[in-house]
């Protein structure tokens, strides 16, 4: 009884410390666990892997710093997969604060595959418009993106020759920390028939499974776990695989806290006069 009373009055900062240690220790010792690949992630992988060389993959970077630890590993994995398959990558975003992450990823991965800007990949950046833009891109990309994120007119980029609307986009990959994924599905998917793969944060991913079930999207990569699975599939272990052991330890600790808290609650309630 006294034990549970003490637990109930514990300083919350000790819980934060325990959680931090449960994450930090596996990272310091570089512990690795085997990763089992789920079917939604495998389907996402196949959607890219089955594309013929030269196909255009549009990647929408719809997140910012607060979701980057989950979505940036997915983005990097997809970029590596696309460049290895010699696919053309067209990056844009619906979040203005996501544009640096789009550029950071390209700057890190493109040189590894000798990908050339304007020939193998283009970064359109961000433009306001959201839903109207998603619909408008089905007519003409240049209506919204007169220039790319570097200020270069699209017509002067070799990769963009002949790329005018969704008809020339073979796959759209939405990396989502919010509602933009639903909008891509509604306006690019349902209206124009664009094939879509979604990579989403853990918070957003559960709301996307019904699209997968209804075959409105081709694949779903959910959170850091999904990123680790994708890294496993492409054979390029990165930040996601490195982080999954820490994830597992933190989950075990939280489960222990939940069990302890509930047992303590019932014991103390029973002991009350």
């Amino acid at each position: 009884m006294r034990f549970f009373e003490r637990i109930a009055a514990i300083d919350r900062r000790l819980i934060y410390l325990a959680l931090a240690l449960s994450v930090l220790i596996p990272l310091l010792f570089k512990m690795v666990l085997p990763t089992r690949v789920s079917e939604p992630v495998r389907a996402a992988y196949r959607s890219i892997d089955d594309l013929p060389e030269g196909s255009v993959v549009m990647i929408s970077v719809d997140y910012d710093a607060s979701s980057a630890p989950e979505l940036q590993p997915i983005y990097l994995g997809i970029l590596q997969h696309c460049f290895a398959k010699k696919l053309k990558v067209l990056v844009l975003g619906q979040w203005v604060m996501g544009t640096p992450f789009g550029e950071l990823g390209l700057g890190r991965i493109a040189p590894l595959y000798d990908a050339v800007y304007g020939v193998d990949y283009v970064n359109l950046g961000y433009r306001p418009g959201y839903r109207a833009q998603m619909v408008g891109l089905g007519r003409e990309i240049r209506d919204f993106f007169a220039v790319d994120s570097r200020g270069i007119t699209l017509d002067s980029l070799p990769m963009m020759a002949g790329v005018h609307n969704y008809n020339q986009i073979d796959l759209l990959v939405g990396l989502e920390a919010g509602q933009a994924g639903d909008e891509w599905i509604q306006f690019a998917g349902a209206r124009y028939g664009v094939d879509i793969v979604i990579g989403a944060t853990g918070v957003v991913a559960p709301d996307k499974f019904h699209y997968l079930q209804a075959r409105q999207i081709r694949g779903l990569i959910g959170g850091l776990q999904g990123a680790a699975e994708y890294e496993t599939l492409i054979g390029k272990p990165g930040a996601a695989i490195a982080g999954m052991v820490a994830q597992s330890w933190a989950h075990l600790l939280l489960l222990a806290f939940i069990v302890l808290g509930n047992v303590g609650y019932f014991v103390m309630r029973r002991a009350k006069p």
Partner: protein
Amino acid sequence: MTQIIGTWIAAGLTLAIFSFLYKDNPFYKVAEHLYVGVSAAYAVLYAWANDVYPMLVEPMFLGRGAVTTADRWILLVPLLFGLMMLARWVPRIAWLSRWSIALTVGIAAGLGITGQIQGILLPQVAGTLVPLTSANNVLMVAGVIATLVYFYFSIAQKGAVKVGSRLGMVFIMVAFGASFGYTVMARISLLIGRLQFLVFDWLHVVK
């Protein structure tokens, strides 16, 4: 050298934000306000440099790009609506901004309604009309029907309706549980990301 300075600033700001877990303090407040200020400034400058200037100022006032006279005149419409939105700052003519807001709301509502019907309602109904030949399909259809019964308030919740409603509540709770589990994973992932940055990129404790 620039990257080293950037890494140290990022690490300092991360620690400043984490310091809130101990208690509220001036370092946290500085980092918080800095983030809001930098984000706002970045968004304004980005919109000006990549949207307003190349798509409005250049073709309309400088005549750059493949624009006809008609193209230049039509740009007056977004220019006027944009300026009317700014009228909110002047109380005497603030009412002008309602026109711009009405246009924005109208477009959003129009797109939203068609998008919801064409992109969600119809495909999701079609996705639910599946042959009941597997346990997964049976479970899914039962879940949809039971959840709809739970939200059907036009008849008294008793008898068979009550059973269906209770079953619907179970399905909803399972969905909430799955969402909560994913949310926990998401939040821990953010902590992992920051600690990876501190350990790998800043301190270089682990190679």
